[in-house]
């Protein structure tokens, strides 16, 4: 620790701290214009000049980067210091009179009218005052070094390379944030870096909590827009995290766990609505997928639960369209089972929260579950317009006074046998549920099979819907097919029960079908060794014969038929048995 006398007060501070920081800790204000905590002080505005006395020599130094030394006396307000600050301020003020930061500082230092007029005067309120903050943060903290100074002397100014949008700029916005006069502006580019999470309906900072109801509710770092990940710079979040919980090097690790049973509940994904251009998803404003609308309804969502169009106005009419991509020749023939009910829930909530008119476009209302039909009846009473028919197209329509365009839903109302066009402000599409895009990989890994609609195939549709052909691998939930939450929960419990039953047994009943080598017949040709996919057959050097480890053997019998000396018996399917069968079936 070093003690320093500032304006008569003795202040004790760490080594290497600057006078400015020491004075601040003692509550003494020193004016600064180009100082910033985030990088090494640049010391160019010279406003922080103070008088330093060591031994008999006194001199003026900038306090922002002068390291404190033992036995230093500092005068932050001597006449000389006041005179110097006033004059420097006069210079700066005469060049940039309308910049708020400069105007306030000039007022604070008692500089009213500069005695001279700068020939390079810049009257813009957001003029660049050459403080160099943007250049320094871009070079030292963000480490992208995009901005730099050009020219020397009075002609010095901050430039982008070749004055064009630079490739290395990662649009982190640090320069705009640190610029004291707002000279640097960030405008949206056609290709956004750090992709906006479109269906979270809002821009994201690089480190964010997805939603307040996220489980677990902890911040995550979006790799694409995080400066530290991109260029190794910044790292500001780790300075503010007291428990120092941020580890930038943490990468996904693959951990291997030995398990007895595997339950596959990989769930589903919704169909990509952009394929169906007739509904205008992604092209027209206010056409939402059900998941986006669900997020909007959520109180922690971007709109805090209120239903708003993209431009912030309340919708006057809302259209909810069922079976988008389900029960559809071109996409999925199967019914996604859950859409009708959540669509009704949407209709009820819209009715509840807004005075808007609600139109529901369905093919068949499948309210199959317990209490579902009653809910449907209730909605009819609440005045939801139910239109039985497929929606042909959603397009933009313009009222005569030409303000906000509305959405025009063209559909066929099969109950009254007419084509209708319904004007609404917002449309919600209920996308089909389809297996995850990488379902075929999962199938290969666990050697289970898929049904024609690509969901995983259960061992038996009626009697054993949660287990698969492969022992020890179970499936549950939408991975096995579209279903709603009650069904998924039921299946999950069933699968868990099956697994627990095996686990509680303590040992696993290995099915008897195995292969075995008869020592006397085996000639040690080792043909079968490389054959076995489970490498269950190994060679006994001392006896010069192969033997089968019956824990590993799955009993497929490939080795039995391949053995030239038929020295391997396939228990359960011995040659004799099969030949006897053969004889039997051909004898008649």
């Amino acid at each position, binding site marked *: 620790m070093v003690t320093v006398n500032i304006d008569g007060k003795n202040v004790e501070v760490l080594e290497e701290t600057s006078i400015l920081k020491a004075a601040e800790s003692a509550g003494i204000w020193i004016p600064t214009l180009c100082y910033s905590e985030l990088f090494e002080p640049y*010391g*160019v*505005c*010279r406003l922080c*000049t103070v008088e330093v006395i060591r031994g008999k020599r006194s001199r*003026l*130094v*900038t306090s922002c*980067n*002068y*390291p404190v030394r033992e036995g230093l006396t500092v005068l932050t307000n001597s006449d*000389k210091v006041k*005179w*110097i600050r006033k*004059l*420097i301020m006069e*210079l*700066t003020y*005469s*060049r940039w009179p309308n910049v708020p930061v400069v105007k306030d500082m000039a007022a604070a230092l008692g500089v009213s009218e500069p*005695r*001279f007029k*700068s*020939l*390079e005067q810049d009257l813009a309120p957001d003029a660049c005052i*050459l403080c*160099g903050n943007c250049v320094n943060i871009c070079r030292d903290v963000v480490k992208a070094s995009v901005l*730099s*100074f050009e*020219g*020397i*002397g*009075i*002609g*010095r100014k901050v430039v982008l390379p070749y004055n064009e949008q630079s490739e290395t700029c990662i649009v982190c916005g640090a320069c705009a944030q640190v610029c004291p006069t707002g000279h640097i502006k960030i405008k949206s580019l056609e290709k956004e870096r750090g992709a906006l999470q479109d269906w979270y309906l809002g821009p994201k900072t690089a480190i964010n909590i997805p939603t307040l109801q996220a489980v677990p509710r902890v911040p995550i770092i979006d790799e694409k827009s995080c400066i530290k990940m991109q260029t190794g710079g910044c790292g500001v979040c780790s300075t503010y995290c007291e428990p120092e919980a941020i580890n930038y090097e943490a990468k996904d690790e693959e951990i291997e766990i030995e398990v007895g049973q595997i339950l596959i509940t990989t769930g589903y994904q919704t169909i990509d609505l952009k394929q169906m251009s007739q509904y205008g998803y992604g092209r027209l404003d206010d056409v939402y997928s059900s998941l986006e609308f669900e997020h909007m309804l959520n109180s922690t969502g971007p709109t805090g639960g209120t239903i708003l169009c993209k431009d912030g106005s309340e919708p006057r009419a809302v259209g909810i369209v069922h079976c988008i991509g389900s029960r559809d020749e071109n996409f999925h023939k199967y019914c996604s089972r859950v859409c009708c009910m959540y669509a009704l829930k949407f209709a009820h909530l819209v009715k509840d929260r807004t005075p808007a008119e609600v139109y529901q476009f369905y093919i068949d209302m499948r309210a199959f579950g317990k209490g579902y039909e009653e809910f449907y009846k209730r909605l009819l009473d609440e005045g939801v317009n139910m239109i039985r028919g497929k929606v042909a197209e959603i397009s933009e329509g313009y009222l005569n006074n030409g303000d906000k365009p509305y959405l025009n839903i063209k559909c066929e109302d099969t109950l009254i046998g007419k084509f209708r066009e319904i004007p609404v402000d917002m449309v919600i599409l209920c996308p089909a549920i389809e297996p995850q895009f990488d379902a075929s990989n999962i199938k290969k890994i666990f050697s289970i099979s898929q049904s024609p609609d690509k969901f995983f195939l259960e061992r038996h549709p009626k009697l054993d819907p949660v287990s698969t052909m492969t022992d020890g691998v179970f499936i549950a939930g939408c991975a096995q097919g579209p279903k709603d939450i009650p069904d998924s929960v039921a299946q999950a419990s069933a699968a868990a029960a099956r697994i627990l039953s095996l686990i509680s047994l303590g040992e696993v009943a290995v099915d008897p079908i195995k292969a075995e080598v008869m020592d006397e017949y085996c000639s040690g040709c080792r043909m079968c060794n490389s054959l076995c996919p489970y490498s269950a057959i190994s060679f006994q050097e001392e006896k010069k014969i192969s033997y089968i480890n019956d824990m590993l053997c799955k009993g497929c019998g490939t080795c039995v038929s391949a053995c030239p000396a038929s020295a391997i018996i396939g228990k359960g399917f011995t040659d004799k048995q099969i030949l006897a069968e053969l004889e039997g079936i051909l004898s008649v």
Partner: protein
Amino acid sequence: MAYRTYLMVCAGTGCVANQSMKIKEAFEKELEKRKLQNEVSVVTTGCNGFCGVGPIMVVQPDGIFYQLLKVSDIPLLVEEHLIKGRPVKKFMYIPGEKEPPIPKMRDIDFFKKQMLIALRNRGLIDPEKIEEYIARGGYSALAKALTEMTPDGVLDEIKKSGLRGRGGGGFPTGVKWETMRKVPGDKRYVICNADEGDPGAFMDRSIIESDPHAVIEGMLIGAYAMGSSDGYVYIRNEYPIALERLKKATGQAREFGLLGENIFGTDFKFDIKITRGAGAFVCGESTALMASIEGRPGEPRAKYIHTVEKGLYDSPTCLNNVETWANVPQIILKGAKWFTSIGTGDVTHDPWGGSKGTKVFSLTGKVVNTGLVEVPMGITLKEIIFDIGGGIKDGKRIKTVQTGGPSGGFIPESMLDLPVDYDELTKVGSMMGSGGMIVADEDNCVVDMAKYFLTFTQEESCGKCTPCREGTKRMLDILENITVGKGTEEDLELLEELSNMVVESSLCALGGSAPNPVLTSLKYFRDEYLVHVRDKKCPAHACRQLNVYTIEEEKCATVGHGCDMCKKSCPDYAIMGEPKKAHYIDQMKCHKCGACFDVCNFKAIKIE
């Protein structure tokens, strides 16, 4: 091949510009013709210093000094001097109109009062031959240091010698080396600052051109004392000949094993990289120079942590000027006591106590003998200007002498008895600086000169810190107003206030010294400023906007036989008059550009 005579042809930049290379070829051709090429050898040497009378050739061993040679003079000279052995008076140095020419170089007063340490080999050796440098005792100081002395011993010798930085700061070299030595760190750098950005200064250039090995040997000794193995020479790209000779010298030194690994068989390792400066004056400042070497733009940084602790690539770095390095070998060879016998003050206890050794000045301006002079510290300005410099041209009266380049100050005539050393010059507000010394006579306007120097430093300001960037521009605007007659008396107070502010609060030495010319000219020549401000007149007629141009009837040649040179030259058509009659200038239209004055051969234009 025993030569009996050597023709030492000067090959400094000044003389080369005046075709001294052609003269060398002419000599060789002529000697060939006269079959004397085996007896007489032609040697190109570094700059002799007397650039005002180049091209120069000195015949040795006779010591005869020939000046202002032309290719056409060569046959006569060879015939007379080399064949008949009769020195040719026509080409000798003539001190004044009526005085006899002085044959011997030693007797010419330009050389008599000089004492050569840094320039001891100038004119005597061919800088591109290392053998000649060694012949005159070169690298023996290094041998002595490496084998007979310890690094501390070398350091102590330099400290005791009282040698101070020749770059302008005058910081005691011994103290600097000692601090550098104490700082830990395996990667340590030694830099030679040959940027020499001052306009009109060519000391470092001549030292490198005449004796590059002296600098290399000095750096080797310094590196040995401070434990560094990496050296840089930061040299201006605008010095092609010096750059060329430095490259040859380092090459030869490397070939001779004087640079590289285990020099003289010891485990001392040192090599020099040459970095070329791109001509920014600010890069003469140490931290800006280091930023430039590191490839970053040349911007100085605060020196609250000295570069000897954290310099190039954040490692300890010792930067010294060319002349400082060139002095080191002699100090080691002849010992500190010899060095302290030259110069002023007493440095036994306090290294700041005096200015020891010699200083090279580039004496230019309105002096008769312009050139490079190396004089012992403590010599008075009067001796330099009048004895060495041969007084003022065309017998005019001296007004002031400006020392220290564009950041130096004006010293009035009344102070010419001032002994030249660091402390005396700083006391009167000027500074030793790099060694530029510009003499001005009564025809020079101090305000105009101050404006010229300030324009230079303002243009070269890197613009990083507000006081220097904005302050110098405002000062320049005020000076401009004064020189066009729009200045007021308050302007002078404001000018002084701004100058003090820029000196006190600028980040680096450029800003810190740029106002010196203004401050000293205000201090010693305030009356001239007042004339400019009050009477809107410029006594020296240098500030043209303040002049009134009229044509003197009697002198004007148009009367009688017609000549309208001035009429044709005037851009504003302000001069009227019928042919064969006296012309007159219409004061309304005249923009006082002074073209007519320059053109009139009959001096008929009168300026008040």
